[in-house]
């Protein structure tokens, strides 16, 4: 969501970090100091950290824990710069009353943004503390060093941060003039520090929004229409109100919900309301079988993403292919949940939103309150992988809590609420046409059709919280624009001629928004599948063919590392049952480089594709936590394997049919591949986002392995047994 974030939060973030290089490559004199990430906007050091008298430091981040281990990694960065043990770092995250606004925790940007800001702020704080100690003790600043928060002069202990905590003044702007610790001196960064949240999670400590139970808490449930934009004609609210434990039934236009003393009572009342409700109108959804044709023929706003014109050579062979991706669901393991409480005209919301400040803006709009009267605090939920129901359920909770002032209300969506109402990753069509002269691609034309991948809350010109569209005075959603579809649409390969066009289709029959990797998953699947098709046409080895079109040395290095790890050999076709394939991308063409090699086995009778082994090589720049990176890369590959083999949101004219795990099957334990990961550390280079980087390459590697095994190409996701059997027939 980088673009939206920048737009919403103004140009300040970019303005402070402009740096110009002279022809000699040295920085020119700058008018403004160079400040990293959102430090450029939230410049006071005490917005980012405080030194505590108990020997700890508290670090504030606008980024939140989604299961990606970000709070552990950010604590490592803070510990490194402050010269403290990471155990002494207390992390406070995602609280509109306490932390900086760093936009959404999305786009694999948390290390790049918040990590950079915290690194700089903590380096400056350490400098201030050392100088304070030097002045007090009349020691030369240069002779002082710090070990775990204690400042030493040569051979002797002097003062500790804890002793300076009462007097140090960090309410001063960052200067950008203190250099962070050089990579060669790192003791904490680059180490596989264990995740701070895991011990609590494996022993049943309260960890999630679902675990909050303040005194007097009530339980809420909501009743959604049977189809998008259905209008509530009537419901037996009186009957529901009379059920045991029911405290309030809330109806506002077509928003319907219930508050009860006990959770099972709320569930029962929801069922009563659902059965008794009569709805009229609502959207008819299009024929799923004609989805892709309709998408390509729909009215679109077209943007040329990249263009390089070179006259085509005289002799070239032209190839074309079309690839498709269906609507896919985030399908969080837990349906979304939020806790809200109204007291004295103020609203508190505990939420697993990825952007508490953006959520607050849309809550304010929907509830007709000022943002100052609302506080949103992040508490973990189940992993979200993008914009799911987290923000929506926060408004549901607020609407129900408003009916019972003073009482906290926890709203837990049911499984069908999440599957039917979350915003999906959009369906996409990718058409590629390329000219091959000998073994070289000389011209490349790429077209992608998609709805928006960005309908998060907080955008201007509308309200993106679900319930706000159903109130008696309904709000309209904001316009998502063509965001996200073109992610990774331009290949990193270098072709003499290239034209990449994004066809943004505004008319979206299903609710859509940001799902992990956005358009990058399907674009990389299409590009990397087609690269293999062209390699086959050129009678070239897929690895060698890629390298022949790549100049970027880091890109080449990950491909070579993956090929080496997998024992890649240029070989003939597989035996019809087994095959191996490669997929590569640099996420967003700006974050991590990842190459994936998949080995698959095929059951020709059943049509089942089994991914047996994955080798992956990654270059994420400087590594903050190698185990955290592996966990993210490998998790992304397993998730992509699930998307690629199984996942598709099914719908009919009335609405979503995939409303539970039977209707939306995902990869199970017996199907999960073996994984081997090689990390190429670049300690001298900036860290690069990695959380979304492995999904596209994994999908392509699986498709290419299938083609290698069978000689047949699967261009439509997912690779269901039906499609596999059709391809083999």
């Amino acid at each position: 969501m980088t673009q939206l974030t920048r737009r919403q939060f103004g140009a300040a973030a970019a303005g402070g970090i402009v740096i110009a290089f002279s022809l000699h490559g040295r920085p020119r004199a700058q008018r403004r100091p160079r400040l990293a990430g959102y430090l450029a906007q939230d410049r006071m050091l005490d917005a980012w950290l405080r030194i505590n008298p108990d020997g700890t430091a508290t670090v504030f981040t606008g980024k939140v824990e989604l299961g990606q281990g970000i709070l552990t990694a950010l604590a490592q960065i803070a510990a490194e710069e402050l010269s403290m043990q990471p155990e002494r770092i207390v992390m406070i995250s995602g609280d509109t009353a306490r932390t900086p606004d760093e936009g959404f925790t999305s786009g694999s940007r948390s290390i790049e943004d918040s990590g950079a800001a915290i690194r700089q702020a903590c380096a400056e704080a350490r400098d201030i503390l050392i100088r304070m100690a030097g002045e007090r003790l009349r020691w030369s600043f240069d002779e002082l060093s710090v070990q775990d928060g204690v400042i030493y002069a040569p051979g002797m202990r002097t003062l500790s941060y804890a002793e300076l905590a009462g007097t140090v003044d960090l309410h001063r702007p960052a200067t950008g003039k203190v250099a962070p610790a050089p990579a060669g001196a790192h003791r904490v960064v680059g180490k596989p520090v264990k995740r701070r949240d895991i011990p609590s999670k494996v022993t049943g400590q309260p960890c999630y929004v679902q675990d909050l139970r303040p005194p007097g808490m009530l339980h809420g449930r909501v009743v959604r229409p049977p189809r998008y934009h259905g209008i509530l004609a009537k419901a037996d609210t009186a009957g529901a109100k009379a059920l045991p434990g029911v405290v309030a039934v809330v109806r506002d236009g077509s928003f319907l919900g219930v508050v009860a003393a006990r959770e099972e009572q709320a569930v029962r009342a929801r069922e009563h309301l659902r059965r008794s409700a009569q709805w009229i109108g609502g959207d008819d959804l299009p024929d799923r079988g004609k989805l892709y044709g309709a998408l390509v023929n729909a009215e679109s706003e077209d943007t040329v993403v990249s263009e390089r014109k070179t006259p085509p050579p005289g002799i070239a062979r032209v190839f074309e292919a079309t690839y498709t991706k269906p609507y896919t669901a985030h399908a969080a393991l837990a349906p979304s949940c939020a806790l809200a409480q109204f007291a004295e005209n103020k609203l508190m919301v505990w939420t697993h939103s990825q952007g508490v400040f953006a959520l607050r803006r849309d809550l304010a709009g929907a509830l007709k309150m000022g943002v100052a009267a609302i506080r949103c605090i992040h508490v973990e939920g189940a992993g979200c992988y993008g914009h799911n129901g987290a923000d929506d359920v926060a408004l549901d909770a607020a609407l129900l809590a408003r009916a019972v002032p003073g009482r906290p209300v926890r709203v837990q969506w049911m499984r069908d609420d999440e599957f039917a109402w979350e915003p999906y990753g959009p369906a996409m069509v990718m058409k590629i046409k390329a000219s091959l002269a000998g073994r070289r691609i000389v011209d490349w034309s790429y077209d992608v059709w998609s709805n928006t991948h960005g309908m998060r809350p907080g955008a201007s010109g509308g309200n993106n919280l679900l319930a706000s569209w159903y109130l008696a005075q309904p709000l309209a959603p904001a316009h998502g624009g063509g965001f996200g579809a073109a992610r990774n649409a331009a290949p990193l390969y270098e072709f003499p001629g290239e034209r990449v066009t994004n066809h943004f289709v505004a008319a979206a029959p299903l609710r859509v928004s940001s799902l992990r990797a956005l358009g990058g998953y399907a674009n990389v699947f299409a590009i990397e599948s087609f690269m293999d098709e062209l390699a086959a046409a050129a009678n070239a080895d897929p690895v060698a063919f890629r390298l022949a079109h790549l100049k970027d040395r880091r890109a080449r290095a990950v491909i070579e590392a993956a090929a080496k790890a997998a024992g890649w050999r240029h070989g003939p076709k597989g035996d019809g049952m087994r095959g191996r394939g490669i997929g590569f991308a640099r996420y967003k063409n700006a974050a991590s480089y990842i190459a994936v090699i998949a080995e698959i086995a095929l059951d020709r009778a059943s049509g089942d594709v089994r991914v047996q082994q994955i080798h992956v090589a990654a270059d994420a720049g400087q590594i903050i936590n190698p185990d955290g990176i592996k966990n993210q890369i490998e998790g992304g590959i397993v998730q992509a394997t699930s998307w690629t083999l199984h996942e598709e949101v099914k719908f009919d004219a009335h609405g979503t049919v995939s409303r539970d795990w039977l209707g939306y099957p995902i990869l199970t334990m017996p199907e999960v591949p073996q994984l081997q990961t090689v990390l190429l550390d670049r300690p001298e280079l900036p860290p690069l986002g990695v959380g979304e980087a492995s999904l596209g390459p994994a999908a392509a590697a699986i498709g290419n392995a299938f083609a290698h095994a069978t000689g047949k190409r699967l261009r439509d996701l997912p690779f269901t047994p039906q499609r596999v059997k059709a391809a083999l027939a």
Partner: protein
Amino acid sequence: MALTLKVNGKSHRVEAEPDTPLIYVLRNDLALNGARFGCGLAQCGSCTVLVDGKATLSCVTPVGGVTNAEVVTLEGLGSIDNPHPLQSAFIEEQAAQCGYCVPGMIMGALDLLKRNQKPSEQDVRAALAANLCRCGTHPRIIRAVLRAARAMEKAP
């Protein structure tokens, strides 16, 4: 109505209708977090607890049916200071991303290890086939269960 439940070795009196799903009583009345709500449909395994030693889905188990049984939740295994070998193994292997599925995985693995002290990787995969994980942490979970099996064999 008043019911008596034995959970993690202790007796508890709760006021609930007998047809209330066990998960809500564990979570809301007893403030135990180990049984996690994932689907309410017996499809994901997040709410797994042991009832008389057997892995059981608490989201579809009426509380009235377990009043004479021994219920064990994740909290009954160990604590941060004194973790069960399975909990230690999940920490050692860093076998979590969001961690929401982990309690169900551990309870399912405990059920397996009671039946089979030396499980193969295939045994672990088969035993946890009905436990969904959305983050893709499966390889680490498998490693953690095998590590715990080895540890429990050494120190039963």
